[in-house]
């Protein structure tokens, strides 16, 4: 590590891997928008950068390989060759190869070198295709010569993708003339084209559309405003409307972002747009209500004008945020972050002890310090946790690749659409989610989506759609993978479940429960083992991984219409809020997010130890379990007791998935912030416990696995049908 270049090498590697991952995203996007010049440019630039710096840091094989890819991409960029599906496939392989080459410095394993050579040849072959195409261009220019004097080299041949890389925001208003339909113009095509030019907010105006009686169906009434941020430049925008220059009113204004990144106030935007005068705004601001409302009420602006201005404000704010996050961020190695979280965890634990001590000593000044300390630590904790939060979208593209590759392999057509890519989740959670999600998605492509022909027969589009959606829900993130495939075959699952001894042959079982049997170990309905999802692992692996994250997995299906797997994952793993309870002198923690409430019950009203009984909670029959018996605290089996059962016991009502369960404890102590510690090997197999934590006084408390406990209770109480209504 004496060579200072090594330090930059690490930076280069990090940068190169990032570029390659952007390249993959870009190529996948390019596949659906092969004419998007911005995307081609971006892909080209990524490769170009990798090529340049790789040579500097001695990655010659990377540089050489990137050079051929660059050549091919350049031909696409200048329009000589067009982007085809095959090319995207080749480019993706090339990207993978570059990644591989990056992994091995200097010594390249033979198989990779051979693969590289064959890919290189394919890139060269691709680039060579540019020649015959030139021949057809000649054919065209022969005619061009027929009309001499014509300036053939004009607008059409210019690359519309100017060198401009600077992103600018534009305010565009497009008012088609009433008669625009009459020359065959499809107005929506133009607006769509505009929205594809960059990040766009499109505001249609339909105020002028009259009621049906007065409407001339061949007359255009609609008009649009758009706020667009693009690197394509003003000419590219004008080019879209080039055919309708005289048939429409087009206004393009460049918007300037405010310095300092502050959002421009609504009033300024309205003045800027010429909707209202500065004096009117000043006057309206005098009243204490929302500016927009006042102006509309006083008929100084129309409601649509205010709404457009608000869209503009929001758009610019987002652009600014992107710029900010691009410039004001630093990279930190993730293990440093993990260390920070550990330290914060220690602090939280220590703070609990400090609080306890200050209560014991009962000194006013110590108590005040302890309280301040607690506030600061809780802020520190929240901040640290938020640093670890990443948008889940960073992993989405990996899944798009999975769907693409797998559907090709299986001869199916499928597309992945994603939603909520900006949903944030703890980094470690995201990492652990990767494999289960890949498995679920593979399962959907393999078992859910039908072959294109079968889909057509069933009246569906040839290509199946797999939707991956993420959103926040309280302290959880819900992640849904749904497909529009054939759904689950109830009878096949039932038969298999009976065969595997998971249910009795005559057992009545709710559909919902039957479907979730898929998550049981050893269950797989695939008739033949395919190379894809039948590799000996089933959905039970998914279930186990999700369980280990403290989450739940659920499956719903509609025969013929597809299925949905819903994962409910806690936001963070490291520090949670818990309810501290005591049973026979020992401490346990119930994760607060699962707790619905607590009720008291007299000891003699409870069933005998070990028995599972039912209690009425808010008009609902909830089965309960006596944890004293379950964990054999106080050695109750032999009747010996470390601590007598209190006369009045507490039942903590907790919910897990769709079930509620009552947990009988001696005493409920209160809320605690707890740092989750993994269980030692001794405890790893203890049923009903998911982890441990250290309390303020240094004692250890076990964290209850409510999901597991609920399942045990439900299974053994025989109350499944009744709980269905819960």
């Amino acid at each position, binding site marked *: 590590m004496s060579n200072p270049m090594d330090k930059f090498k690490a930076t280069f590697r990090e940068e190169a891997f990032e570029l390659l991952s952007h390249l993959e995203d870009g190529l996948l996007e390019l596949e659906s928008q092969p004419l998007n010049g911005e995307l081609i440019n971006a892909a080209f630039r990524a490769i170009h950068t990798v090529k340049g710096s790789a040579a500097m840091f001695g990655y010659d094989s990377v540089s050489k390989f990137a050079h051929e890819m660059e050549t091919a991409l350049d031909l696409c960029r200048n329009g000589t060759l067009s982007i085809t599906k095959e090319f995207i496939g080749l480019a993706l392989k090339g990207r993978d190869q570059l990644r591989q080459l990056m992994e091995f410095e200097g010594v390249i394993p033979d198989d990779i070198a051979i693969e590289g050579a064959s890919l290189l040849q394919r890139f060269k072959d691709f680039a060579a295709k540019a020649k015959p195409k030139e021949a057809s261009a000649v054919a065209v220019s022969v005619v061009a010569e027929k009309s001499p004097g014509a300036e053939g080299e004009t607008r059409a041949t210019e690359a519309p993708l100017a060198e401009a890389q600077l992103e600018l925001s534009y305010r565009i208003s497009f008012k088609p003339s009433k008669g625009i339909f009459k020359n065959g113009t499809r107005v929506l095509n133009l607006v769509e084209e505009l929205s594809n030019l960059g990040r766009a907010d499109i505001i249609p105006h339909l105020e002028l*559309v009259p*009621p*049906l009686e007065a409407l001339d169906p061949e007359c*255009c009434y609609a008009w649009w405003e758009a706020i667009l941020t693009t690197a394509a430049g003003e000419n590219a925008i004008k080019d879209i409307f080039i055919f309708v220059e005289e048939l429409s009113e087009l206004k393009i204004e460049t918007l300037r972002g405010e310095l300092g990144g502050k959002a421009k106030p609504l009033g300024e935007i309205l003045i800027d747009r010429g909707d209202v005068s500065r004096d009117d705004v000043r006057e309206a601001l005098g009243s204490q209500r929302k500016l927009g409302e006042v102006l509309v009420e006083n008929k100084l602006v129309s409601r649509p004008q205010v709404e457009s201005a608000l869209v503009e404000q929001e758009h610019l704010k987002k652009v600014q945020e992107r710029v900010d996050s691009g410039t004001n961020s630093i990279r930190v190695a993730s293990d440093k972050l993990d260390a920070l979280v550990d330290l914060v965890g220690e602090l939280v634990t220590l703070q609990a002890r400090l609080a306890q001590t200050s209560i014991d000593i009962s000194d006013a000044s110590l108590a005040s310090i302890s309280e301040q300390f607690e506030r600061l630590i809780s802020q520190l904790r929240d901040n640290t946790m938020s640093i670890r939060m990443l948008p889940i979208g960073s992993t989405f593209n990996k899944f798009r690749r999975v769907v693409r590759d797998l559907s090709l392999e299986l001869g199916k057509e499928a597309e992945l659409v994603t939603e909520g890519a900006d949903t944030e989740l703890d980094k470690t959670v995201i990492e652990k989610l990767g494999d289960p999600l890949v498995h679920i998605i593979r399962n959907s492509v393999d078992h859910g989506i039908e072959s294109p022909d079968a889909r057509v027969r069933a009246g569906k589009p040839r290509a199946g759609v797999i939707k991956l959606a993420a959103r926040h829900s309280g302290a959880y993130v819900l992640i849904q993978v749904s497909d529009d495939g054939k759904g689950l075959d109830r009878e096949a699952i039932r038969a298999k479940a009976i065969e595997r001894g998971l249910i009795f042959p005559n057992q009545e079982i709710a559909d919902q429960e039957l479907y979730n049997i898929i998550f049981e170990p050893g269950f797989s309905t695939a008739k033949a083992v395919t190379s894809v999802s039948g590799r000996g692992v089933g959905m039970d692996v998914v279930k186990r991984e999700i369980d280990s994250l403290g989450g739940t997995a659920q499956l719903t299906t509609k025969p013929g219409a597809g299925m949905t797997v819903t994962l409910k994952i806690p936001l963070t793993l490291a520090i949670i809020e818990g309810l501290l309870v005591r049973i026979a002198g020992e401490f346990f923690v119930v994760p607060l997010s699962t707790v619905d409430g607590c009720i008291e019950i007299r000891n003699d009203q409870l069933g005998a130890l070990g028995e599972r009984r039912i209690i009425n909670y808010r008009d609902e029959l909830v089965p309960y379990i006596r944890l004293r018996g379950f964990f054999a605290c106080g050695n109750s089996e032999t009747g010996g007791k470390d601590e007598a059962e209190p006369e009045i016991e507490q039942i903590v009502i907790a919910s897990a998935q769709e079930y509620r369960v009552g947990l009988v404890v001696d005493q409920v102590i209160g809320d605690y912030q707890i740092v989750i510690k993994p269980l030692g090997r001794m405890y790893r197999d203890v049923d009903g416990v998911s982890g441990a934590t250290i309390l303020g006084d240094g004692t250890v408390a076990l964290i209850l696995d409510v999901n597991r406990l609920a399942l045990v209770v439900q299974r053994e109480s025989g109350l499944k049908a009744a709980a269905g209504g819960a």
Partner: protein
Amino acid sequence: MEVNSSPRIINLSGSLNVERAAALKTELAEALAGDDKLLLGFSAAEELDLPCLQVIIAAKKSAEATGKELHFMGSLPRGIAKRLAACGFLRDSSDQADGLESSLTGF
């Protein structure tokens, strides 16, 4: 005193392009004259271009002005939903016709 309150359902199919606009106007005007409640379905449509979209919006305005009801139902074919979203007519990325309806009523 209307006794019959069950809505009349019109499933739009084929290419709703500029050539169809005039016929669609007549169809919707007649339907609005005869019924108080109309439900428009788009799931069988192949294309939905601006002229027909304007006719539908106009019909909705007429219905509202005369105290009648006109609602959209079912799903929008993907291609149509994509284009409408790109043109600002669908605010969320929903592909449901009622999403189109709620977006349109804002204008």
